[in-house]
């Protein structure tokens, strides 16, 4: 799986039925049809690095800090591509560490959305914080966690 820069024709990949702002944005089981789809904006400047896995997902590096060499990682997978999430996450981490030359990647994870936490561990992420009431899901405030990966070389 490869990542490339965002193009105008990729717009449909920027929204989907996942919780907003998640490290692993995957479709949520039992999600009411009336809930608005999550979406990210097309890039307007260099403050955000938005990449595309063609036909499958977006990978966004936001809150970039070039002094601390860190970025928040967000991924939004289209429902038909969820089987590729493990490979995509490893590709995203490699892009962050070796193409963008970042030292740290982190993201928000909502356990109530039932993300595949083992995939995060396999890609080098560790749970670093558990914030009570950090997200709103299914009509209630739910715990949200911060997972981080640090480059050691």
């Amino acid at each position, binding site marked *: 799986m490869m990542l490339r820069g965002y193009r105008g024709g990729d717009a449909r990949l920027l929204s989907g039925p996942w919780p907003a702002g998640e490290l692993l944005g995957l479709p949520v089981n039992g999600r009411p049809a009336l809930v608005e789809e999550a979406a990210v904006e097309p890039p307007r400047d260099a403050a955000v690095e938005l990449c595309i896995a063609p036909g499958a997902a977006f990978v966004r590096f936001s*809150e970039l800090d070039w002094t*601390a*060499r*860190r970025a928040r990682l967000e991924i939004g997978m289209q429902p038909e591509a969820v089987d590729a999430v493990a490979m995509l996450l490893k590709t995203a981490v490699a892009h962050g560490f070796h193409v963008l030359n970042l*030292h740290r990647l982190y993201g928000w994870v909502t356990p109530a959305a039932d993300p595949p936490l083992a995939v995060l561990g396999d890609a080098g992420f560790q749970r670093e914080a*558990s914030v*009570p009431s*950090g997200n709103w899901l299914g009509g209630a405030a739910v715990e949200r966690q911060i997972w*981080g990966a*640090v480059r050691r070389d």
Partner: protein
Amino acid sequence: MTDPTLTDAAATSAVESTRTDIRRLDPAAAAAHLRAAAEAGRGFLGLDPVTQNDVLLAAELTRMRAQVFRAGDKLLGSVPNPDQPRQAFVAATCADPEPLRILLGFLDTRQRCSSFVAMVPDGAPSAAAFESCGFRQVGVLRDHRYQAGAYQDVVVYHAESGFVASAHSEDPCSA
């Protein structure tokens, strides 16, 4: 029978709290005050006035929809959690808990925040203010900052509004 000395002391404390002079700053003024705060301002709401210029600081504060307040030479700030409207990220530049209590009371009663999160650079004096206000540590972000030639951790604190110690309902915007 109630000791009148204690009653007077409580009343005096309340009056002093009410008189705490907290003023709201616009993004440009907040950036200038952050720069003036020097070391104490590093890591405030994730910003760094040493490595970021005033224009960038003001733009980031605007993008985050941050509210910044000044109490004397101390700065306080809050940013709404975009994914949970009842939660706010908060920051302070000092170890004094009293201005922080006033900010938390304002966010609770005037902006309906029911919980608060603070991300504090490891070893920063402001950690004492959060702990005094009832915050508890819920995690550590590894190597989250870079300062003085080395990566540093950031400690994550959390508090529910009902557990914030002695939060007063005051309006820092009334000045």
